[in-house]
């Protein structure tokens, strides 16, 4: 039997596909099967992958039954929903599921703290907080450099400044 896709090689792989309740049989060669396999894998989307990760990432958070039923107070999405669809429901979900999301974000991005642009439209409180955060980041980078260059006196000064700002930020 020749391959049903390329019509050239010997069919060695036999597939049964069910699309819209209709069953079709496919007899195809190794090469075409690999291509077909790649197509099938792409149906297995990011959401599935994320859902798997979310389970891992949730750690203890997701373990107890009570906690998997935690709902976002704003949009009503549960952590179970998130695991199922791989998407959050609203901005507030990030606070509602923070504990579970932190390890997940760490795994995806290697970080849990945003640096960079912030919206132009925001309250003064947020503006100040963003300023402190960016200043802190800058100081930490300078501190790293000073340590690398073995400028320890400078590093000590920078470290004190970082501590001071961190305290301020927490208030």
């Amino acid at each position, binding site marked *: 039997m020749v391959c049903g896709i390329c019509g050239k090689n010997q069919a060695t792989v036999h597939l049964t596909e069910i699309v819209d309740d209709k069953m079709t049989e496919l007899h195809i060669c190794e090469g075409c099967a690999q*291509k077909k396999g*790649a197509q099938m894998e*792409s149906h297995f*989307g*990011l959401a599935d992958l*994320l859902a798997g990760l979310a389970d891992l990432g949730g750690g203890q958070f997701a373990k107890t039954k009570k906690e998997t039923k935690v709902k976002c107070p*704003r*949009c009503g*999405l549960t952590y179970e929903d998130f695991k199922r*669809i*791989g*998407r*959050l*429901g*609203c*901005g507030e979900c*990030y*606070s509602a599921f923070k504990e579970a*999301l932190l390890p*997940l*974000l760490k795994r*995806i*991005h*290697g*970080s*849990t*703290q*945003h*640096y*960079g*642009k*912030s*919206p*132009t*439209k*925001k309250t003064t409180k*947020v503006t100040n*907080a*963003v300023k402190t*955060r960016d200043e802190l980041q800058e100081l930490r980078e300078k501190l790293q450099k000073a340590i690398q260059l073995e400028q320890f006196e400078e590093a000590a000064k920078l470290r004190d400044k970082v501590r001071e700002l961190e305290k301020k930020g927490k208030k």
Partner: protein
Amino acid sequence: MNISDLLNNQGEWLRSIGPNSDIVMSSRIRLARNLSNYPFSNWASKKEQQEVLKVAKQAIVASKKIKSSLCLDIGKIDPIDRQFLVERHLMSKEHSVDADNKGLCVSDREAVSIMINEEDHLRIQVMKSGFDLRDAWRIINSIDSELGNALHYAYSLDFGYLTACPTNTGTGMRASVMLHLPSLVMTKQIDKVLQAITKLSLTARGLYGEGTEASGNFFQISNQVSLGHREDDIIDNIERIIRQIIDHEQSARDVLLSQNKSVLEDRIWRAYGTLKSAHIITSSETIDLLSLVRLGADLNLIKSVDRALINELFIITQPAHLQKLEKKKLNPNERDVKRAEIIRERLG
């Protein structure tokens, strides 16, 4: 302006001007943004989606930075038109299905496009021909700032711009570069390059984004990480790596030319010959052959075809483009015949 007018345009990513345009087709940056007062698109009610569509459209139309835009309700347009917009890289494939309350605004010769109610409320995209992420960032940054004045974005100090999928949160930015790497594929070095990329927290995709196969030796390379690094740093990182890939492709081209010139010429001219004489041709074969002809033009082996024509063929031979050109529905077999006819005509 309406959708069919785009047919006469040359989309930004196919203009083949700009830095390194022999290897880099286009540079693209997209930002994911959400409005803080509404649930994310997938979780929102129909009514909320409608409101987001309305509010976002108003802000875009009122914008001074986004000039003379074409705004479309995706749910109200023909499926062929939807596919046409996907083929032109103005919107994602996902945006063309379940299209109720989804919107798209296109402006500035297709360099700027904004999807409304895709996975996130706003997906802003800026495209530049050639290797020019910096300019793309300059443009998108100013558009985003302006829209951010009119709309209240969902943002947190810790997680930055909040997105439906946690893989996009932080900067909400994806910077990607579309590369044409035929020589790295021919010299079988491409797998090594792609493996190295993944280790540097970048990802490679095919011509049409997530889940698509690499075809015609085109690879779209983009950052995977969006949280924890500033926009400038993310762009720096990807630029540095892309520059290395360009160098590798260049030296692979040099090696092929100096050591295997006749084999290379044979492949390129055969591709050209097939395109000039085929009477039935699929879109995937077309892309593969055009890729070789493009290489021939870049290496100055084929002098009679310029890159603008090759780029035009890339796009007008896509299924929805063919049907728009012919102004009627064509089944796959009819398309393969029509496609071959158009290519023969244009290549003379």
